[in-house]
């Protein structure tokens, strides 16, 4: 066994001074990791006072990766490995690794593009595919999202780059679209005035841009309308709830009918009406 180990050259690694070097390299890695983490966290806290969360995150990550890279280089140097030679040898390794880590590499490149393009930043509300939530971090491999029901979702960067992203909080104001229908008998001008008055009375509803009244067409059960109002992005949910509630209240008060789907049974032009018999118990 010992002969075999010597033949393989592994025994030289078990010599005391080699073990010492190994321990030194390991200690260097640990120190580098801890130092990187400490510096990164400290810097992030410092930057958060004056900078955006996104900037703080990117800068602190870069500092962390830099410190870890220096520590790894130092550890390799302690072990007597030349980084230049290693990188040269890595050329061959890269091909092998490239096949093995295609997905990770793709995510990594996508992550760099995401950081450069910045379609969203930390703290934004975004919709990616079927996931909607707040961006917690944009990392090298994935985007972490907290959904509204407080679930933690990790979306690979490659997926984010490939699909379309909707940033819900990019602009300071948003539009709330209310789709409704009114009975055919209603006076549309009166309905329009009622809706405008509802928007006027709601303080969360922006005066400018003004509300939009849109005829969508003649539906099965009534005339279909769209009423759109604008609000601050922070008050989007409050405005959405308030405007629906106030429209319903105003329609109830003024006797405007919101039709539910109904069918008229027609038994043909020549036929008599369908007989209905009422039985009393």
């Amino acid at each position: 066994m010992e002969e075999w180990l010597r033949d393989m050259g592994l025994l030289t690694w078990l010599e005391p001074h080699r073990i010492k070097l190994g321990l030194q390299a390991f200690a260097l890695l640990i120190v580098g990791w801890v130092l990187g983490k400490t510096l990164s966290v400290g810097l992030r806290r410092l930057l958060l006072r004056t900078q955006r969360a996104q900037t703080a995150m990117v800068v602190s990550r870069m500092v962390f990766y830099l410190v870890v890279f220096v520590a790894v280089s130092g550890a390799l140097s302690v072990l007597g490995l030349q980084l230049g030679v290693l990188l040269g040898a890595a050329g061959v390794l890269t091909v092998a690794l490239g096949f093995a880590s295609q997905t990770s590499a793709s995510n990594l490149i996508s992550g760099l593009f995401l950081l450069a393009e910045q379609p969203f930043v930390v703290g934004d509300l975004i919709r990616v595919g079927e996931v909607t939530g707040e961006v917690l971090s944009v990392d090298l491999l994935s985007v972490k999202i907290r959904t509204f029901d407080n679930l933690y979702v990790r979306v690979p960067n490659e997926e984010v780059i490939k699909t379309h992203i909707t940033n819900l909080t990019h602009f300071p104001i948003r539009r709330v679209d209310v789709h409704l229908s009114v009975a055919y008998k209603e006076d549309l001008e009166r309905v329009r005035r009622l809706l405008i008055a509802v928007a006027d009375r709601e303080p969360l509803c922006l005066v400018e841009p003004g509300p939009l009244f849109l005829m969508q067409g003649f539906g099965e059960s009534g005339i279909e309308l769209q009423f759109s109002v604008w609000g601050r992005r922070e008050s989007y949910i409050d405005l959405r709830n308030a405007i629906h509630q106030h429209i319903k209240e105003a329609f109830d008060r003024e006797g405007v009918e919101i039709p539910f789907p109904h069918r008229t049974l027609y038994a043909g032009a020549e036929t008599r009406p369908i007989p209905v018999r009422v039985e009393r118990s």
Partner: protein
Amino acid sequence: MADPVPAPWWGDFALSVDTRAYWRIGSFELWLERRARDWMVAWRREEAALSEALAVEVPTEREVPADAFQERVGFRQTEAQVRLMPAMADRPVVVSPEVPFSVGEGEEVTIYVSTPVWVQVHLGKPLRVDFEEPSYRLSDTWFGPSTREGTVCYAARTAARLNLENVPVRPNRAITAVRVRNRPRSPLPLEHLLLPMPSLGVYAAPGVGLWTATILMERGAEGDEARVRIGKAPLREGKAMQRLTSPREAGERSVLLRTFGGIFRRKE
């Protein structure tokens, strides 16, 4: 605080433990109840924008209605002193004349605009603002060239009164004199006017209600920019009024040069 101005509702008040005080400031009602270790603040607001109602009852037997919003502020031990102060809006206010209004070519007019004040309640020792609420909730609005660029403001309507005698004094509204000077050889239609309320302090003098510093707006020769300056405290019988509250945003008194579109919006 020494207060030579007879204060209808603002100023310092003293309240003993387990007593309540009541203020009615236009459409805004406020109840304050002092307990040994906390203050209870209750308030409610009516929809009427131009109410002239005013009542100060310190102390009062009036019960806090069930529909009033309530909150409590805790202290190691509450102090008897409480201060109520008016403050201007925390965002700029966009005022629109009720009837289309324009300033003639080369003319200078002073428009009197009244906007609701925020009611601040100062508690503790030293006194600090522990509660603040607008006396009337103005609608939000957007002021800018597009839905991408601009500022969220409050919107208000104005009768654009030009005579001071016609300006009604209301307890919950402060009057701002806006002096608009139109230079170029074309009339200036004022569809909207952006007033930098956070940069204005509140002033008062006996019998004239609440005022803010004067705003001076001068249309530039090119017509696409405006020089906005916040003037001094308004005068009352030749003397400056007493300042009740400092501006929320300091350092805005100096001469500002802003784009014309950012101050006025012209009718196309």
